[in-house]
């Protein structure tokens, strides 16, 4: 009932004569105020969108994307608001803005395929699909901030338009602006997860302010309706709390978010993405055949797709290096670290990929050449990853020529520690890793002298019978992931799947000064037959796998298999020469004299007292503190309100308070309970409305006595307040009995209000926020 709001505004747009329905002067002004409200909401929504784009700041380099994002938001919101301003039917606005959005996106990203450059055709849809596919591929090839590639801009602009459109739908059409908060939080989670250092506080504050602005605009629109105000305030409080929690626990949020976002964002079909998706893929209820291949190798090697060699502080990533075109004529002659001393045999593998989409080509390591690929591919020197520039693996059929390396234990043991500079990065461990990883690594390898012996000891440690393979335990135990923190938990729980085993061994090897990385690919699968001299194998989606690779000078990257029950332990890994029967109780002596270890690589235990339990306690302590602060914040209005009421009633009850105090308390309590208390209502009219709440209430509560008592109390109150205000007297009028009257009336109103309103009155007393409780607009003449 906001008819009177903004009656001073004359709309510059739209003559009132254009409306065909019965236009009355009041209706006319109602429409004008409706326009003002629409305009306010539109502006507030725009503010929310601008704040969101600020939050996305560091995701992509340059500023062009920012302008495009703002443009699409403004167009979507502007068209919707414009439709309302010129008083088109209410249903037109969302449709028109959606159409404008589609036209704009078409004009920006696929003008070539569109009629007149902006009307989409089926070809436009194809182009968009290609952009999305391209974005999938580019996603992992780009760091943060990413280059402003068209596919990223497309995703960003499309998402921005969808968010703007949905926000408009929620806030204006459905009159539920509070739910825009959910959108904002969802939209913020992407930058929060991807950005180093999380969300900037400025962006958070901006988003919060814009959101509150939106709620404010809505409260002004629906003023008088206490329930709406209350709901908005409740959700706003919730949003503030969420923002506080996110802000306070930012590091934890980042860690969780970082692994979650790239994973869920890009996993399609039976495709592969870094480790976390791998777990999700493995847990797929119905495995499907993803690859069939024939090979000349009697014991086929794993099909490697890529390596995850960079731990960015929160997630394992494939560090992209310079890649060169890979065509069927490309012959890779140099395998990193490998010398001729290692014996090898040539292997030919004919691969047919079925329903598996990835930009990384599965092939036995080390690849020499590949024939028969469609599309344009590139390869990276450091790990021989073959990645599609414009192509993916799906339905590819190709022939790989590779080598089957057969290093001997002796070669590996004598490899030494003369690591080339190119693997230095593979020694980095996060400075924050829990000490249990390094400590376990040292205790397990105590007695092992050479890196090879240490590697074998590490691998044996996982196979010593205590560890078990479980796809579900990490997820259920809340440590599904590849960060040092989750790996530390894994080492305690001793249950996990390939991701955990591989990440654990990689971390431990790096802690011991051995360059290590995680390889991702497929197990050889099961033999299904023989074709000539070749064996035919079939790989199911279950065979997705991750394993550690350690670097040995002269041999190069050597795979190990720590995962219990999966894959095969390589020959060179079963040497018992220096295998140590490890016990976790054995005291660890830090391996000394490892000159190659980088500064950042210092075992955590040497300089810090980073006890995992202490960390856990302190983090749970901070969580508890946050919870306490949040609870205190949530309860603060309730406590303030109760004290205020007690003080008012006490002052009335002891004769010191005036009638006006009692009346103020009555109005405030009614406001808390969701009743409108417009300042334009006379006390008598207000009282009439109150009386109706219990007169018309169904059910036995309040009972007849209470109703009669409340009615009598209300009569006394009205009599007192009318005399106080309008009768010929000087000085305030006081009556101690009025305190009881107020209590009686409030309890009668509360009894009819229902538990939800009572709870809200208790927890979110809106009267505290309403200032003078002005709420003009309730038309007394209408009832």
């Amino acid at each position, binding site marked *: 009932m906001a008819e009177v709001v903004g009656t001073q505004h004359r709309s510059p747009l739209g003559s009132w004569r254009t409306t065909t329905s019965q236009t009355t002067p009041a209706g006319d002004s109602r429409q004008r105020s409706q326009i003002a409200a629409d305009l306010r909401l539109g502006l507030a929504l725009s503010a929310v969108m601008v704040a969101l784009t600020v939050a996305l700041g560091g995701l992509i380099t340059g500023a062009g994307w920012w302008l495009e994002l703002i443009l699409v938001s403004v167009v979507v919101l502007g068209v919707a608001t414009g439709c309302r301003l010129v008083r088109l039917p209410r249903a037109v606005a969302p449709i028109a803005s959606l159409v404008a959005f589609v036209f704009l996106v078409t004009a920006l990203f696929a003008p070539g395929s569109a009629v007149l450059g902006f009307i989409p055709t089926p070809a436009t849809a194809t182009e968009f699909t290609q952009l999305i596919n391209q974005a999938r591929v580019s996603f992992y090839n780009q760091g943060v901030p990413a280059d402003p590639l068209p596919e990223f801009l497309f995703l960003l602009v499309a998402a921005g338009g969808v968010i703007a459109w949905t926000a408009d739908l929620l806030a204006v059409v459905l009159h539920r602006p509070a739910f825009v908060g959910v959108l904002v939080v969802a939209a913020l989670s992407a930058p929060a997860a991807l950005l180093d250092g999380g969300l900037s506080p400025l962006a958070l504050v901006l988003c919060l302010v814009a959101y509150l602005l939106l709620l404010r605009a809505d409260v002004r629109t629906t003023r008088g309706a206490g329930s709406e105000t209350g709901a908005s305030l409740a959700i706003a409080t919730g949003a503030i709390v969420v923002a506080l929690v996110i802000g306070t626990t930012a590091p934890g949020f980042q860690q969780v978010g970082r692994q979650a976002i790239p994973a869920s964002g890009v996993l399609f079909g039976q495709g592969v993405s870094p480790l976390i998706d791998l777990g999700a893929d493995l847990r797929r209820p119905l495995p499907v055949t993803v690859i069939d291949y024939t090979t000349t190798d009697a014991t086929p090697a794993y099909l490697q797709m890529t390596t995850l060699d960079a731990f960015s502080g929160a997630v394992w990533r494939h560090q992209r290096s310079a890649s060169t075109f890979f065509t069927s004529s490309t012959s890779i002659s140099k395998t990193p670290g490998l010398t001729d001393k290692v014996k090898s045999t040539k292997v030919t593998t004919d691969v047919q990929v079925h329903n598996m989409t990835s930009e990384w080509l599965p092939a036995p390591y080390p690849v020499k050449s590949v024939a028969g690929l469609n599309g344009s591919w590139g390869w990276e020197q450091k790990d021989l990853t073959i990645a599609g520039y414009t192509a993916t693996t799906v339905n590819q059929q190709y022939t790989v020529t590779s080598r089957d390396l057969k290093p001997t234990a002796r070669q590996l043991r004598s490899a030494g520690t003369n690591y080339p500079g190119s693997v230095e990065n593979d020694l980095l461990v996060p400075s924050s890793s829990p000490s249990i990883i390094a400590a376990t690594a040292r205790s397990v390898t105590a007695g092992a002298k050479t890196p090879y012996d240490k590697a074998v000891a590490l691998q044996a440690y996982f196979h010593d019978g205590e560890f078990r393979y479980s796809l579900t335990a990490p997820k259920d135990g809340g440590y599904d992931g590849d960060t040092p923190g989750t790996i530390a938990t894994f080492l305690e729980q001793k249950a996990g799947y390939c991701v955990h085993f591989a990440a654990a061994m990689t971390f431990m090897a790096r802690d011991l000064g051995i360059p290590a990385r995680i390889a991702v690919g497929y197990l050889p699968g099961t033999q299904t037959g023989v074709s000539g001299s070749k064996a035919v194998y079939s790989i199911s989606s279950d065979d997705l796998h991750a394993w550690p690779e350690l670097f040995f000078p002269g041999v190069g990257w050597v795979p190990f298999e720590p995962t219990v029950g999966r894959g095969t332990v390589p020959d060179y890994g079963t040497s018992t020469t220096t295998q140590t029967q490890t016990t976790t109780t054995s005291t660890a002596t830090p391996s000394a004299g490892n000159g190659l270890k980088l500064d950042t690589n210092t075992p955590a235990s040497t300089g810090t007292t980073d006890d995992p339990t202490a960390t856990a306690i302190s983090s749970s302590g901070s969580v508890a503190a946050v919870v306490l602060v949040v609870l205190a914040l949530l309860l603060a209005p309730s406590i303030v309100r109760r004290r205020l009421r007690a003080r008012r009633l006490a002052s009335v009850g002891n004769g010191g308070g005036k009638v006006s105090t009692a009346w103020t308390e009555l109005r405030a309590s009614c406001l808390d309970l969701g009743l409108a208390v417009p300042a334009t209502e006379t006390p008598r009219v207000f009282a009439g409305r109150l009386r109706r709440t219990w007169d018309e209430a169904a059910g036995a509560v309040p009972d007849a006595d209470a109703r009669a008592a409340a009615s009598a109390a209300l009569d006394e109150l009205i009599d007192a307040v009318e005399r106080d205000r309008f009768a010929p007297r000087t000085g305030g009028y006081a009556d101690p009995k009025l305190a009881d009257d107020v209590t009686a009336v409030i309890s009668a109103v509360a009894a009819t209000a229902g538990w939800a309103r009572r709870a809200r009155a208790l927890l979110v007393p809106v009267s505290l926020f309403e200032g003078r409780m002005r709420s003009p607009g309730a*038309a007394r003449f*209408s009832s």
Partner: protein
Amino acid sequence: MNSLPTKQPTDAASAADDVDPDMTPEELQTVAEQIATNVEAVIDGKHEAVRVALTVLLAEGHLLIEDVPGVGKTMLAKALAKSVDSSVSRIQFTPDLLPSDVTGVSVYNQPDRRFEFKPGAVFANIVIGDEINRASPKTQSALLECMEERHVTVDGSTYPLPDPFIVIATQNPVEMEGTYELPEAQRDRFMARIAMGYPDEQAEIEMLTGRDTSSPLARIGAVVSTERLRQMMSLARRVFASDALKQYAVAIAHGTREDPDLRLGASPRATLQLVRAAKARAALAGRDFVLPDDIDDLAIPVLAHRLLPTSRAMGQHHERTAVLSEIVARVVAATPVPTGQQK
């Protein structure tokens, strides 16, 4: 609801009035109730219209009853007049009615050899002006001048009108044939305008039954003397209006002046009459002070007929009364009620 104190606080405006110790608020309510019963014996089912008419009578204002022909405008006026034991005259306004017919005329008295004033129809306590908007503007203004001045000036001599002097005029909606619309300046002199509206089904059936035998007007008689009525008026004038309430009335008047849908807002005379009518209404309710509720209830009858809507607000609407009522209701609904006395 409240019993009035026996000693009334003295309002500045009523200081000059002599106080009749015999008239108590309870008596006022009783008598007012009798008048209302009397009138409602003739007019069925028009409680609110009768109540406003009574309020205007008590506030010594002039009443304009506007509605389509045949809904009982004249009946209401006559019943009200007949309830009071006072001089009543009725003027049927026609296009050929002359001003002197209303005010009176000086005629030459041959035997006395001097001019003698023959009082017109306006010299009565209650004057019923029937179909006032059918008379020529000249005649209309003659009556309306009397209403404001409360005396008649003919040929340089001034003749005071009786006290109390109340005009109850009826008129057809201006859109009907053969009418001259009252100018806004003259409409302003009526304290309130009420519309009768059609009776509901039940009331109409009862009316048919009652009218079968005799005119209902014949069955009612006077229930209050002129002297009594004067006392009631005096008591009503002395009802207290607090500063906060005056602010409220002024705020509403201001609201009409600033409303974008109005070409002409309420005059200060309108504010004055609004408060005066509100006092009478408070007295009718047995209260010795005015409440904002009194103002709210009377805002439409007292204010609406004085306002002029913009042509934009009128648009394709022909019911100006309805449009104006809605605007006034909106203004009142938007005006905050004062929360306390400013003393």
